[in-house]
């Protein structure tokens, strides 16, 4: 055991760094999904599409900015702008036109409505952005790389991956926790989550809160996509693979649990990168194994509250 560590300890350290940035990206997508599920009780399959659209929009805006001759740091504005756009336009549109009609329906119908939306958005995306990979990595390049010592060697990591991704994730987590616990709007969201009708009776406009939450969740998905966009090239289908992963996070975390989503993302991120180093065959199944293992021990998810059945 000790021998294994002295042989592989340094590699393990690198794996941790990689895992952290991956976890950050996973968290950014999963947290929005989790929030939406908490308030609307809808598993939004189209969340992956919102992620993809956020990424594409960010890249398009970034490319547009670059064509205007704006400096490289403007790329960051593009990222935020994309999240705002998706959150403020697409989110309300979907909630108003579609989701609002099916609140309170059977779970399976709600799930399928978003599945249908997912199918539609996949094609819409293709019609708008085409099929050739789109890349806009100015924000990543702008910050350059950081050399991490590795024995006698050094390993360059991008500063974007090392600082921006985990930084934004941690900031999002902290801001969300603060928002939900300390602000009135946050507490109102929690109230609607707990009991929509009781909340309405005390003067809360539940419909508005649901619209707000969904748009916010959509914005978070888009922000996740926007953050991922500088490191990757965008092709059709990026949404489909993202969404299953975030499902796993949500179920493992405990429904509606923000901190749970953070911890689960961390477990998945680290688990995956360790797998890539030492057992690459298992890389893809790591998130699901973690999920099954967690639910075996805690059937309500990591941070989930066991709902007691009244008799």
């Amino acid at each position: 055991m000790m021998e294994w560590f002295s042989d592989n300890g340094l590699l393990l350290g690198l794996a941790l760094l990689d895992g952290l940035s991956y976890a950050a990206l996973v968290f950014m997508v999963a947290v929005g999904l989790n929030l939406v599920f908490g308030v609307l009780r809808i598993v939004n399959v189209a969340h992956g599409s919102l992620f993809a659209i956020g990424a594409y929009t960010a890249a398009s805006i970034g490319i547009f900015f670059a064509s205007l001759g704006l400096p490289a740091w403007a790329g960051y504005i593009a990222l935020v702008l994309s999240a705002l756009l998706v959150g403020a336009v697409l989110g309300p549109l979907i909630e108003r036109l579609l989701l609002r009609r099916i609140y309170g329906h059977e779970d399976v119908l709600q799930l399928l409505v978003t599945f249908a939306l997912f199918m539609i958005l996949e094609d819409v995306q293709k019609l708008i952005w085409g099929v050739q990979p789109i890349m806009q990595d100015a924000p990543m390049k702008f910050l350059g790389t950081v050399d991490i010592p590795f024995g006698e060697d050094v390993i360059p990591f991008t500063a974007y991956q090392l600082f921006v991704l985990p930084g934004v994730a941690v900031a999002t987590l902290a801001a969300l926790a603060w928002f939900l616990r300390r602000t009135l709007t946050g507490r109102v969201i929690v109230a609607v989550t707990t009991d929509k009708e009781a909340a309405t009776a005390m003067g809360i406009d539940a419909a508005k809160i649901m619209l707000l939450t969904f748009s916010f969740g959509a914005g978070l998905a888009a922000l996740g996509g926007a953050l991922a966009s500088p490191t990757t090239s965008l092709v059709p289908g990026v949404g489909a693979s993202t969404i299953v992963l975030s499902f796993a996070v949500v179920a493992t975390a405990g429904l509606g649990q923000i901190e749970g989503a953070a911890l689960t993302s961390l477990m998945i991120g680290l688990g995956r990168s360790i797998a890539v180093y030492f057992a690459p065959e298992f890389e893809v199944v790591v998130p699901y194994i973690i999920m099954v293992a967690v639910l075996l021990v805690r059937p309500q998810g990591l941070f989930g509250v066991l709902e007691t059945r009244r008799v």
Partner: protein
Amino acid sequence: MKRETLLAIVGALALILCAWAIPWLKFVLTVALAKGIAVLGILLLLRAGQVSFGHAMFLAVGAYTVAFVAPSVPEVLLLLPLAALLATALGLVIGLFLVRYRDIFFGMLNLALSMVIYSLLEKMYAITHGTDGIRIAALTFAGVSLEREVQEWVMFGIALTLAIGFGLLVRAYLGSPMGRALAGIKTRETRLEFMGVSARLVLLFAYVLSALMGGVGGALVSMTTRHVTPQLAYWTSSGELVFIAILGGAGSALGPFLGATAFELVRVYAAAAVADAWQMILGGVLLLVILFAPGGVWGILSSKLKGRGA
């Protein structure tokens, strides 16, 4: 009940007629019937209020059983029961764990396990040929190797027979004490326990039965398409099965077959009409059905028949 029987007979005849008149539709309809059998399993679980968002894994197990065993035993009449047996065994193992969970956890765990199976099929390249999948050579039926045209008819016939058989089985099951208890899980699970009945066991039985039908459906699909790929187990395939269940309507054992036929036809014609936006059309159809005809095709047909009868 009468309406259902009538509709079933008319439907079966219509299928045979279509398959005879339009040769290539025979293939599509065989696949539809096969998927319908698998969707019957989804229907069972829906009756218990549970959505399996990973049921395609049983389809894949059935299909890959055929793919692996066919080179040594290319006999339809042996492969079908074998596929059913293995899917049932997997259903039992997974089910023992899964029936402890409800609602979203049940759905997501099914999804996770199907993704594990998908990943294994994709990763174990040496055995499964990864995403390329495995080609299944021509099979024999009762020891006789058949011409392509005859083989297609035989597969269609088997699928239709099994569809009717499983349809009747599921109908009887849903009306039986176990089936009614299954529906009780949706509304009042605690009562089951206090009647001295293990709700988990009731659900497990349904789950295993649904796995069996998934396996049979998968085996039929593979024998018809004669090529299997891990895509069969991907989450979107599972989503399709749930889609079909709702499209057909969960009100009757006929629903899955109505749904599967409608689904395959819409998909095929949408793909023919707009090859690069067929997904959008399918999504649109799904939305329309949920928003305006939540009873699915069965709901529309049965209310029409009722209106006519009255």
